[in-house]
């Protein structure tokens, strides 16, 4: 019988929630890495027992964790505990080393970006926001990091190399941090074209490569952001998240700072599909596993009030690819609720009856096993949830 495994990253550790295909009874494992911020965990589609986790701290920096047994045990790639002193030997513990490329000519930083005061500022690594394991090889994984860049490891997370064509393609000096930092938070691999990837950066926008990460171009035509000097600029948009249904990779849905957007040409052009949403500010967006025109968002009151509208936790579903939205409320609190749902904190499983999952800053993780019609809290009282991913297991 099928099973699901929900990987939850929180402000104070990681939790793993497992259930059978009914998704009624759950086992909770954790906290893993107690006390640390776990920005994201994601399993390899090639080997579901291979899970990558981003463990991070303002005090101690970035740690990369990996599990090869479905989250039961963890290791830092390349640095098993108690390893003898390497004398002589290669440098150890490169797994948490994310070194930005420098200019081949000058040896100086490849580029700088715009700082809050408008001056130029060098890139400084802060943390990994998102891991995206390869669709073809369990040892290959991409990392989206702050300050915004993409790195790749081909050895299970032991060593990381920047795909610096993204920062170096020309618009880098115009990028600037959003309130949460200048983070590359969304990373989507196209299953129909191994050379194509999409990424999104706050607050630079969306970008696409069609040659495996060597060259990138902004894909922000149609986005309109009132808070930047040129609302229609090529870059500078605060894209919060992008979702793609793997069965229809040319169609993308985006939750921008404000506005829910849609592209039918792999990001070349975007149109707004906010329609009748009560507010179109928000962070998460996701797509039904089997119905590519069915999409989900959680509207947030405003950019100044990061909690759900009217004290009601409502997921909005569109079955028409946007514009027409219905509120899904059954099983969700409809009064005195003031939580947020962060950008990587929604996911869908691929069981016949598609399951939808999301986590809140109040520490609840909700599951709907009927595509959003009704909801149950798997857990109520975790630390603030930063990310939710789901694995559908045979």
């Amino acid at each position, binding site marked *: 019988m099928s099973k699901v495994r929900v990987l939850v990253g929180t402000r104070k550790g990681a939790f793993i929630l497992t259930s059978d295909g009914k998704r009624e009874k759950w086992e909770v494992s954790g906290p893993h890495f107690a006390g640390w911020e776990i920005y994201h965990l994601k399993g390899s589609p090639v080997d579901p027992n291979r899970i990558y986790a981003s463990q991070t*701290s303002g005090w*101690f*920096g970035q740690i990369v964790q990996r599990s090869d047994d479905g989250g039961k045990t963890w290791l*830092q790639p390349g*640095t098993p*505990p*108690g390893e003898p002193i390497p004398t002589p030997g290669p440098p150890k*513990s490169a797994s948490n080393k994310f070194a930005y490329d420098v200019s081949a000519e000058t040896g100086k930083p490849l580029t700088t970006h715009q700082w809050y005061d408008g001056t130029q500022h060098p890139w400084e690594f802060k943390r990994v926001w998102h891991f995206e394991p390869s669709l073809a090889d369990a040892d290959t994984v991409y990392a989206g990091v702050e300050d915004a860049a993409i790195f790749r490891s081909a050895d299970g997370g032991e060593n990381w190399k920047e795909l610096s064509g993204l920062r170096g393609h020309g618009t880098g000096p115009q990028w600037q941090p959003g309130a949460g930092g200048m983070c590359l938070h969304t990373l989507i691999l196209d299953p129909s074209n191994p050379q194509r990837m999409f990424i999104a950066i706050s607050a630079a926008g969306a970008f696409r490569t069609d040659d495996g990460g060597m060259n990138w171009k902004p894909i922000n035509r149609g986005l309109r952001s009132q808070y930047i000097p040129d609302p229609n600029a090529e870059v500078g948009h605060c894209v919060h998240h992008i979702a793609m249904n793997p069965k229809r990779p040319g169609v993308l849905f985006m939750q921008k700072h404000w506005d829910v957007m849609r592209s039918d040409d792999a990001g070349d052009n975007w149109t707004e599909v906010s329609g009748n949403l009560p507010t179109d500010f928000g962070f998460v967006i996701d797509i039904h596993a089997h119905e590519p025109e069915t999409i989900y968002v959680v509207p947030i009151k405003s950019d100044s009030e990061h909690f759900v509208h009217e004290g009601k936790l409502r997921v909005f579903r569109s079955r028409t690819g946007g514009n027409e939205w219905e509120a899904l409320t059954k099983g969700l609190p409809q009064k005195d609720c003031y939580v947020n749902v962060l950008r990587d904190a929604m996911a869908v499983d691929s069981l016949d009856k598609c399951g939808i999952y999301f986590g809140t800053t109040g520490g609840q993780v909700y599951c709907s096993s009927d595509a959003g019609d009704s909801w149950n809290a798997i857990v109520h009282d975790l630390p603030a949830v930063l990310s939710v991913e789901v694995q559908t297991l045979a």
Partner: protein
Amino acid sequence: MTPGSRKIRVVLPFHLRNLAHVGSELELEVAGPVTQRSVLDALEARYPMLRGAIRDHDTLQRRAFLRFFACEEDLSHESPDALLPDAVASGKEPFIVIGAIAGG
């Protein structure tokens, strides 16, 4: 013990102990002059998972929210090549890595 080396006691904060899978205090062999640099070099060689968590990988600068103490003194702003107190070099007192009190 290697000739010419000394046994140094080191105390790590809770999260680094967990990363390195060690107890509240550990012992290290340090060869040559006992300085912040030689102690941290030995620590990171023995526990490579701590690289980057105390000092930056490349610049070897102390991470901003960590402090180094010994003998009830804050040594965080001392030169990394300054000799540590004799009591640390003799193993009487530990070299302490401590996390700044901040956050929630």
